[in-house]
């Protein structure tokens, strides 16, 4: 009877003619694009690479684009997590303060925010400047009829808000508003049983948050934070609103307007931004693997950069 039983399957696979058409179209378009890149003189590749490595451009890249991205993200993440914890607090004053902060900074466009930062100096005109001291010190003095000052030191507000620091504050606070929502979602994604288990072991609320809840929330927080960082790299090109001119795109643009080579400098900027974002994507996938420990049964290597790139191009086949 065994001859009658069906054996190994050797079937004709389903044909996908539509895919072959799509691939043909893509190949032709890609060839046209490469041809354009190589033969069109407007690209002026020699000039592109020369512009990319001019010292004001490199200075702008490091001081403006990269440093401001790092500092603004640090400000954003730190304030964002604090805001998220405040937002989830039982205390209505804390949670409303966090809500109002988020409301304001999400509503104001970054370019406008940076412009405002540059003009904030007008609120604290010299010689008094921005004083650090006892709140309402002058009013208390008046009330009690005393003389002297309760201000410990004062700063030139135009210096503070008008430069890179203003840019970092503006971008950082704006980022904090977004990070607060991301961190809040992350914290809420952790099962309440985790906090209960930590408390049952005798951990204080703070310790349970820090050791148990936040590390697990990171798994949800890291991927959107990577996207935010990449978005921040690009938003540093808005720094000119402050105005901060030590910044990649402004420097390239000014080379362009001096030499009338406006298109090649734009290409140079695109290449720099592509390079930075590629590096950040690698860093992001490493972080995701680190904070994804214990989730899913397969090792972190399967979920790395390669897998994600493959999923971006639509599966491994």
């Amino acid at each position: 009877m065994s001859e009658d039983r069906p054996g190994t399957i050797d079937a004709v696979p389903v044909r996908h003619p539509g895919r072959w058409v799509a691939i043909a179209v893509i190949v032709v378009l890609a060839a046209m694009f490469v041809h354009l890149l190589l033969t069109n003189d407007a690209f002026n590749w020699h000039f592109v690479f020369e512009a990319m490595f001019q010292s004001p451009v490199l200075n702008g890249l490091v001081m403006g684009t990269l440093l401001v991205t790092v500092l603004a993200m640090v400000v954003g993440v730190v304030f964002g997590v604090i805001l998220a914890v405040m937002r989830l607090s039982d205390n209505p004053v804390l949670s409303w303060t966090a809500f109002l902060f988020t409301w304001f900074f999400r509503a104001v466009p970054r370019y406008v925010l940076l412009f405002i930062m540059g003009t904030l100096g007008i609120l604290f005109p010299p010689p008094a400047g921005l004083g650090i001291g006892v709140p309402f010190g002058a009013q208390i003095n008046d009330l009690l009829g005393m003389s002297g000052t309760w201000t410990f030191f004062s700063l030139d507000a135009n210096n503070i808000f008008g430069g890179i620091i203003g840019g970092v504050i503006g971008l950082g606070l704006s980022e904090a508003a977004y990070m607060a929502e991301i961190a809040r979602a992350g914290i809420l994604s952790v099962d309440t049983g985790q906090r209960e288990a930590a408390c049952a072991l005798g951990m204080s609320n703070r310790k349970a948050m820090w050791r148990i809840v936040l590390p697990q929330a990171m798994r949800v927080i890291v991927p959107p934070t990577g996207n935010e960082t990449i978005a921040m790299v690009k938003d540093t090109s808005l720094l000119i609103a402050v105005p901060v001119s030590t910044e990649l795109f402004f420097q390239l643009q000014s080379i362009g307007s001096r030499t009338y080579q406006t298109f090649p400098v734009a290409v140079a900027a695109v290449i720099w931004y592509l390079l930075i974002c590629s590096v950040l994507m690698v860093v992001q996938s490493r972080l995701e693997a680190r904070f994804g420990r214990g989730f899913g049964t397969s090792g972190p290597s399967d979920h790395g950069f390669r897998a994600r790139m493959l999923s971006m191009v639509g599966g491994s086949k």
Partner: protein
Amino acid sequence: MSEAQVSDMPLVHAVNVHKSFHGVEVLKGIDIDVAAGEVVCLLGPSGSGKTTFLRCINQLETIQGGRIWVDGDLAGYTEKNGKLHRLGDSHIAAQRREIGMVFQRFNLFPHMTALENVMEAPIQVKGVRKREAKERALALLERVGLGERCDNYPAQLSGGQQQRVAIARALAMDPKLMLFDEPTSALDPELVGEVLSVMRELATGGMTMIVVTHEMGFAREVADRVVFMDAGIVVEQGPPNDVINNPQHERTQSFLSRIREENEDYAAALVERAEAEKL
């Protein structure tokens, strides 16, 4: 309360405990004493308040009325000049250190290995040195039969193994009292035995235990006393053989006969499945 009374007090002394959720009264005046070394099983239909009462003992729920003393300490409050003052977070955390808890859904920390799960609280809460904590954790995992699996993450362990790690994690804090909240209810039937045997061994070792369970066999065999709860009150309590074999109250009787029927149905289903597999 005078010193003499405190020393005479049972390890857990709950008096007139009331608890409501959004106006619905779940505990309506519970009085339960548990002596040191005693194993008490809380039985009762779901919604009877037994899990809520267990969670009140280590203050995962705050009670609205009555008092609970654990090892002579009033849970959640201090009494000054006849007035109760709510304790702060760190004091409540300190009270919970004495009490181990095992959850129905295990609640292991998924981002830590089995070993790290067991080491975490001694290091973070008691300030035990890492090396000592590791030695102790390995010994505890050995004791629950999981010495081999200490580097596995919870997701890589079966439910029964996860629950045994959870027991080791609670024991690592050297608790005076262990609370078990339906520790086998989330397990596949064939994994229930391994968890119960760890608990049995713990009971034999003299640990004070309060166990919310539907495992009548375990209650009958291991418990010194069973407490039957229904609709937020204690209906009856006593030695397991008296309460389970010869219940006095009608509510206890109907609950136990329902459990028995379910067990019979389950046994019948098992037999049916075995026969189906044979065919």
